[in-house]
């Protein structure tokens, strides 16, 4: 019955080894999908490449539906899964700042590691930038602390916030995804081609 390590089915010592293995597949999949290219990543914001939308949405949905299905079959106890906590203004403000950073640099931390691995110097500079940013945050922690620790709603899910059954969410997101994929292909046809 999953999750396996928290339930002791797999010994805890395997945790870090599994981490490396998962990381290897993560890096491979991202790089093979082209996410080591900042110009490909930024494409979603300008309409010339929607790979980010397609990969992201598909991955989130497959994982979501997979979790629901495994829970339904009794292989995975969904209640034991870690839910990313909701600190309302932290989520919004952090997301806004990250959004600007994303468009400015064309990377996010995971994809930047992929780009570093294939030798991109701009990715190395980006990672240094992230570390400087973390340093700045930590040194100025007292300034950020109110939004970092404040407005904590708990580890809530959309079911808690919107009162809708989780299976409905899976269904609705699937519909939204299909519409988004169709729309992105239509937009792609009308946008000037960029080669990178």
């Amino acid at each position, binding site marked *: 019955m999953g*999750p396996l390590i928290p339930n002791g089915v797999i010994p805890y010592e395997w*945790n870090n*080894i*599994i981490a490396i293995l*998962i*990381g*290897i597949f*993560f*890096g491979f*999949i991202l790089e*093979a*999908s*082209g996410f080591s290219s900042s110009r490909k990543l930024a494409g*979603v*914001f300008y309409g010339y490449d929607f790979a980010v939308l397609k990969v*992201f949405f*598909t*991955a*989130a949905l*497959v*994982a979501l539906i997979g979790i629901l299905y*495994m829970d339904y079959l009794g292989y995975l106890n969904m209640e034991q*899964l*870690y*839910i*990313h*906590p*909701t*600190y309302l203004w*932290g989520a919004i403000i*952090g*997301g806004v*700042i*990250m959004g*600007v*950073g*994303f468009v*400015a*640099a064309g990377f996010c*931390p*995971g994809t930047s*590691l992929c780009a570093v*691995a294939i030798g*991109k110097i*701009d990715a190395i500079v980006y*990672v*240094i*930038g*992230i570390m*400087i*940013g*973390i340093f700045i*945050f*930590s040194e100025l922690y007292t300034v*950020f602390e109110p*939004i970092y620790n404040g407005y904590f709603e708990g*580890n809530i*899910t959309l*079911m808690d916030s919107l009162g809708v059954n989780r299976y409905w969410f899976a269904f609705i997101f699937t519909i939204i995804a299909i519409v988004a994929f169709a729309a992105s292909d239509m937009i792609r046809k009308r946008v*000037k081609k960029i080669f990178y």
Partner: protein
Amino acid sequence: MNIDNQKNKHVYWNPYFGGFLLGILILFTFYMTGRGLGASGAMKSGVVTIVDALASNHAEHNAYYSKFVKEEKSPLNSWLVFEALGVLIGAFISGGLAGRIGWRVQHSPKITSKRRLIFALGGGILFGIGAQIARGCTSGAALSGMAVLSTGGFITMLAIFGTGFLVAYFFRKNWI
């Protein structure tokens, strides 16, 4: 097989295929560990380790670093750091097989390398600050958060991409 390496270079997987595999991987990660994966946390551990090594007194007394500094083990001994190492290896293998390895600065032909590096640095700094505030990045908060329908994860995802679309106009010269 005599494939022109130049032509092969930017042939990437179909995004739905890549997304499908990534979804399975995230599912597997939750099934194994009960948590999703991430990336910015590994970089945070790096910073904490460096600060602790250079100025451990300061790290101890700072309210943020001290959360991650423990007596018995280094901050680098964490799941995310090992995962990040794996990412480097996996991306290297994929890039190597595809002939994409090489030192370079990737930028639009309309701008200089220097400009690209400046924006990469600035974007990185912003992303580093934002990822701390939101307690995660696109992988940890947005992707893994969405897989469990976390409200915070969704809010962060919408904030990142929504803001990206809103400010894209101001950075257009870098990309198109």
